[in-house]
Each structure stands twice: as structure tokens, then as C-alpha cells.
């Protein structure tokens, strides 16, 4: 049924890519598969929101409103990214950077990556969730190292080791959880199923759960990119191929945070104290602050936006730490809008880098004259990501701050400061890159129009969310949060 299908589709895609990935037109096939997955995810979401949560695969697969939203995001951004990488790869080929074999590897891994993330989202079994997240890591490690440049190999290695260790810690957390749950649910299959755990969460042993949650947040937090566990993130974003940076920022971080939130619900049920909320608040705030400070000295455009991803993940974490209906809503909204906008930005950045032949900001100049479309898109993206209206991130930040004022007033000054610094740095850099200046003149290459559809689609959605937030979508989010009980905060 639908859940199995949604997992099988990318799996099939991966197999096909593995077989014919080196042929001509395989990338088109890749796009096809990705959009198929997207369609399925929409179908799933429709099912979930019309007649409640869906379970399948002998209870191993499960999807409620909360996961459905992420499934849709993953499917959608995955699809648009495949569209983008179509063009991106073509240019790379034109520059003679890669051969057919590498393309096959890329396409197959891409599908596997999508598969792993979807598996994380729809798996009911926390063990399987762990396995899939690890799988996603492995897939992306190879994708980051994909260009074989020394820098990218280093980045991938760093990514691999840090996230591997983190994931291992998360596994220990899972063991502890199992250890606590099998007393009530008995040994065997059901004791790791989220649905069952959620039923008995109040009876779980608090000390064990608390311990487990710490291991979880340190483990999965590494993948979310929470400071100080974030150090793999900038390199991995900067050195991998740009489509991968887009999905890393746009999807993987979300998925990891999703996992933490699932656990948080259980932990809150058993702990009856503010431990989880406080951890999230702390990690979130530290991440926002350090990320904004680190952006100041960045000279590499992709690293710059990688740090902005850290900042926004921190904000979302902070929002869920605040809790309460508005806080959680804001967090969810923030994750959604971030993955929309940030992935679009990376699309643009990819072409900026390709047309400028460098990732170094000082070497990227005159975009306004060379490629006006890119310059416009980059500027809009910068404004959107720094939380200026009428884009979605403004809405979410509006809500986050408003909740913080009543719930964590002490956090307001540092937050505002961080937001201001981020705005200043990002906007300044973009201004330098776009506006005309006496810089080494590059050949003004024609900007690929096809790739702009994804960009404008994303920005358009962000705009709609920011200006005319559809009430239906609002209710969707609300039911999603209710469905896993994130709405009642501390």
C-alpha cells in the first residue's frame, strides 16, 4: 500500500539508476522517479489528512500528520532538486568534470539518499529509524566525496567520523529506550514501535528515559548541526556538489530534527519536567549565536549559507524548546520555509559558482551585469533567508520571537543581536557580489532558464506562506502538531 510504495519507489529508482545510470537520459529518468515519489508523498499526505494516521508493513511503517508534512517536503524538494541537478550536471559534464560512471554513482546514491530519508520519516520502529538515518549518512558521505577533490575527500571524512560517532551515541540511546520500554511492552518487536511507546510513555522509567534523551540529542543533534556538534556541516556543504548541499540543508537536517522531536514527545511523557525543552532551548540559542558570529569572516559563499543553515536549525530547535501551540507551530513553519528557501538559494549559488568559476566571495563580482537573473534571485533569496517580509521565514521568526517574549524573555536580546548580525553579514556579502564594481570581468554566460523554475517555485511558495498563509495549511500544521502532542509545551 501507500507507505510501502513510497519506500519502494525510490528503492526501485536506485536499482534502475544503478543499472542504467551511465546511459544517456538516465538523469531524466531520475527526475521522473523523483517526481513519482513526490506524487506518492502527496497521495500519502492526502490520505493522512483526510482519514487519520496510516500504518503498514506489519506496524513497522507508520505516518501521522507530522511525518506526512515532512514526507511532502522531502518528496517535493527532492523532486525539484533532481530537476536542478539535471541542468547542473549537464554544465559539469560540459566542463568535462565527470564521466558516465560517476553520473551513475551520483544518480543511484541520490535515490538511495531520498529512500533513506523517507524511510526515517515513515518508519514506526525507532530502531529502523536509526538504521535509515545511518544509511542516509553513508549515502551522503559518498556523495560529498563524489568530486574526489582533496578538499571534498577531507570534508567527507570529517562528516563520516563525526556523524558516525554521533549516530553511535544515538544507538546507545535507542538501546536505553528499548531497555526501559520492554518492561512494560515486553521484549520483541513492539517495544520499539513509536505508536506503542506513545501509548505507554507515561509509565516509562524517567531516569532511563532522561539518560536516553541526552544520548539522542547529542547523537541526532550532530546531524541537525547543533553547536558544538556542528563542525562537519560547513565543510560537507561547501565541498560537495551543490545539489547535494541543497538537499543536505533542505532535507537531511530537518529529518534529523524530526527524529529528535519524535523522541522528545516520548521523553516529555515520562519525565514530567522541563529537561527536553531546556536542552532544546540551550542548544538552539547557542547554535544561533555561534553561527551568526561565524558568518562574519566567511569568504566561501557555500560555507556562508551552510552557517546560515546552522542558525536556522538552531532557531527551529529553539522554537520547539519554547513549546506551546505557537512555539511548536512556529518551529514547524520555520523548518518548512527554511528547507524551501535554503534549497532554492543553493540552486542559485550552484549556478553562481559555475558562472564565476569560484566559490570565493571576493572573486564573485558584477553578477548584476553578468547574469541579472542570478543576481535578482540571489538578492531575493538573501532577503528571504534573513527573515524579511513578505517571505515565510519572517512569519515564523515573528511567531518565534513573540512566543519567546512571553516564555523566555532572557533569550530575546541575544536572539535579536544574532538576527541583526546575520542580516548584516549576509546582506553585505550579497550586495558585494551582485552590485557592479571594477572586478575581473567574467564571460557573461547565459543563465539556464530551466533551472529557474525550481527556484521561483520555492520563492513563490515562501511568498505565499508569508503573505497569504492559507488557513487550510495552518489547520494542517496544527493537526500535525496535535497528532504527536507537541502543542502542549512546558
Amino acid at each position, binding site marked *: 500500500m501507500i507507505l510501502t510504495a513510497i519506500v519502494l519507489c525510490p528503492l526501485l529508482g536506485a536499482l534502475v539508476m544503478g543499472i542504467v545510470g551511465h546511459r544517456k537520459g538516465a538523469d531524466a529518468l531520475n527526475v521522473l522517479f523523483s517526481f513519482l515519489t513526490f506524487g506518492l508523498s502527496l497521495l500519502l499526505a492526502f490520505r493522512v489528512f483526510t482519514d487519520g494516521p496510516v500504518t503498514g508493513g506489519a506496524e*513497522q511503517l507508520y505516518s501521522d500528520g507530522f511525518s506526512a508534512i515532512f514526507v511532502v517536503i522531502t518528496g517535493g524538494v527532492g523532486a525539484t532538486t533532481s530537476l536542478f541537478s539535471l541542468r547542473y550536471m549537464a554544465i559539469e559534464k560540459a566542463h568535462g568534470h565527470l564521466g558516465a560512471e560517476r553520473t551513475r554513482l551520483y544518480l543511484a546514491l541520490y535515490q538511495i539518499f531520498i529512500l533513506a530519508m523517507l524511510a526515517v520519516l515513515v518508519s514506526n*520502529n525507532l*530502531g*529502523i529509524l*536509526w*538504521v535509515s538515518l*545511518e*544509511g542516509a549518512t*553513508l549515502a551522503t*558521505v*559518498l556523495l560529498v*566525496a563524489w568530486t*574526489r577533490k*582533496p*578538499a571534498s*575527500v*577531507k570534508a*567527507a*571524512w*570529517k562528516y*563520516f*567520523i563525526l556523524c*558516525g*560517532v554521533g549516530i*553511535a551515541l544515538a*544507538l*546507545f540511546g*535507542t*538501546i*536505553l529506550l*528499548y*531497555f526501559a520500554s*520492554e*518492561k512494560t511492552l*515486553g*521484549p*520483541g*518487536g513492539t*517495544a*520499539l514501535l513509536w505508536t506503542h511507546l506513545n501509548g505507554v510513555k507515561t509509565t516509562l*522509567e524517567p*531516569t*532511563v528515559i532522561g*539518560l536516553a534523551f541526552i544520548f539522542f540529542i547529542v547523537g541526532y543533534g550532530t546531524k541537525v548541526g547543533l553547536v558544538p556538534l556542528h563542525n562537519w556541516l560547513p*565543510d560537507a556543504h561547501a565541498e560537495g556538489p551543490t545539489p547535494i548541499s541543497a538537499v543536505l540543508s533542505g532535507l537531511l537536517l530537518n529529518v534529523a530534527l524530526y527524529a529528535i522531536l519524535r523522541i522528545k514527545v516520548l521523553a516529555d511523557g515520562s519525565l514530567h519536567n522541563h529537561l527536553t525543552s531546556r536542552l532544546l532551548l540551550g542548544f538552539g540559542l547557542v547554535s544561533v549565536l555561534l553561527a551568526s558570529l561565524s558568518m562574519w*569572516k*566567511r*569568504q*566561501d559563499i557555500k*560555507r556562508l549559507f551552510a552557517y546560515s543553515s546552522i542558525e536556522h536549525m538552531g532557531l527551529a530547535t529553539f522554537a520547539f524548546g519554547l513549546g506551546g501551540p505557537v512555539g511548536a507551530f512556529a518551529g514547524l513553519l520555520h523548518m518548512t520555509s527554511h528547507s524551501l528557501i535554503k534549497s532554492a538559494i543553493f540552486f542559485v549559488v550552484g549556478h553562481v559558482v559555475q558562472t564565476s568559476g569560484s566559490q*570565493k566571495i571576493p572573486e564573485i563580482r558584477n553578477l548584476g551585469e553578468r547574469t541579472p537573473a542570478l543576481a535578482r534571485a540571489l538578492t531575493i533569496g538573501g532577503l528571504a533567508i534573513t527573515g524579511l517580509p513578505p517571505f515565510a521565514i519572517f512569519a515564523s521568526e515573528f511567531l518565534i520571537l513573540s512566543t519567546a517574549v512571553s516564555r523566555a524573555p532572557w533569550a530575546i536580546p541575544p536572539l535579536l543581536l544574532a538576527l541583526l548580525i546575520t542580516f548584516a553579514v549576509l546582506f553585505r556579502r550579497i550586495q558585494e557580489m551582485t552590485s557592479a564594481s571594477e572586478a575581473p570581468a567574467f564571460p557573461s554566460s547565459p543563465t539556464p532558464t530551466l533551472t529557474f523554475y525550481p527556484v521561483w517555485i520555492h520563492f513563490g511558495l515562501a511568498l505565499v506562506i508569508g503573505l497569504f498563509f492559507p488557513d487550510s495549511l495552518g489547520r494542517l500544521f496544527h493537526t500535525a502538531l496535535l497528532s504527536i502532542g507537541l502543542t502542549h509545551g512546558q
Partner: protein
Amino acid sequence: MSPPLPAHPFANDLVQFLGSALLMSAFAMLALRRMTSLVRIFALQGVLLTLSTLAVAILSAETHLLFSAIFTFAFKVVLLPAILFRLLNRLRIQGEVEVLVNVPSTMVLGLAIAVFSFTLAGPISELASTVSKGLIGVGLASLLLSFLMMISRRKALTQVIGFLGMENALFFSAINATYGMPMVVELGVAFDVLVGTFVFGIFFFQIRETFESLDLKHMDTTSME
């Protein structure tokens, strides 16, 4: 709930012994410097795991543990060490691993960590309904020790071994805390570890061909700005 166990002091002692042996091996990893011996220790850990799995399986009459015991043996005693040795030969890595922190202080640190994890796991072990009290502490301790080893060594391969050591510790605590995870999970975990190892392998050759050495100090110089 697990079935009530017949009082079986010998069995308990056995499990306890195996646990402490595992802890010893973790310490040994911290102390040792030769690559090959590290791999051997790793294989030894595999053996210990297999034994303890068997013991627990017999004690708790959990049949699936038998499978996982066999599996563990095949995987952690035969397959992985084989791969590692092969890598060692192929990449011609031998001799000393220079450490970032000198061994004695590492040992002291490790001791502190062991104590820490015991105290931490104390209240939890009380809840354990399984044969072996306090083995969670052992598991946690060896987990953190392997972590410490990853930190304190410089060669890429040592980090890998540390990583696998962590896996072992996790597996161990899973077995002893809860008679093992559900089968699917264990299979999945094992699969991941396997893939991970292959990825390591791929990496070594990439690193090799890009840096002519597996020394991490090349990897450290990040090409930021």
C-alpha cells in the same frame, strides 16, 4: 517480561567475567600502539561478544540470540578483521601509531571515565531484570573508552577501529541490558556497520591516492579560507 531465571551463579559470574574482559580489551586498545595488535584486539572483542551472546542466549532461552551469536561470530570475528588485515597489507600500514595524548595520561583519563560511567549507570542497573546487573555500566564505559581512543589517535585506521569498538560496546550493552534488540533492528545495524566498513575501505584508497598517507594531519588542515 523475560521469564524468571533459575539461580545460576556460575552463569552470572561468566557473564560478569566476559563483561570485565571486554572492558579490559577497551583499555588495551587505549594502551596499545601497534596497528596489527589493535586489529587483533578488535577480533578478540568479537570473540568475547560471541561468547557473552551465547551465554545470555542459553540462560534466557531467547532463541534469536543464538542466531545473533552465530552472526556476530561470522561478522565480527571473521569478516571484519579479515577486511582490516587486508587493508593493512594492501595499504602497507604497519608500525607504531603516534598518539596525540601520551598513553599514561590517557589511561588515567580512561579510568576516570570508567568510574564515571559506573556511577552514572548505577541507578539504572538496579532496574535491570536481566541476568547481569551493572553490565550496562560496563557497556557505557567501553563505549566511552572507544570514543576516547578515537580522540587520542591520529591515524585514520585507528579511528575506524575505535568506531568499530564503539559498535561492539553498543552491541554488548544491547545484549546484556535487554537480551538484544529486535531481530530486524540488529540486522539493520549490522548491515549498516558492514556498509560503513566498505565505505571506510573506499575512503582509504581515496585518501591514499590524494594524500599518499593515512595520517590525519593532512585531513586536519581544513581548506577553509
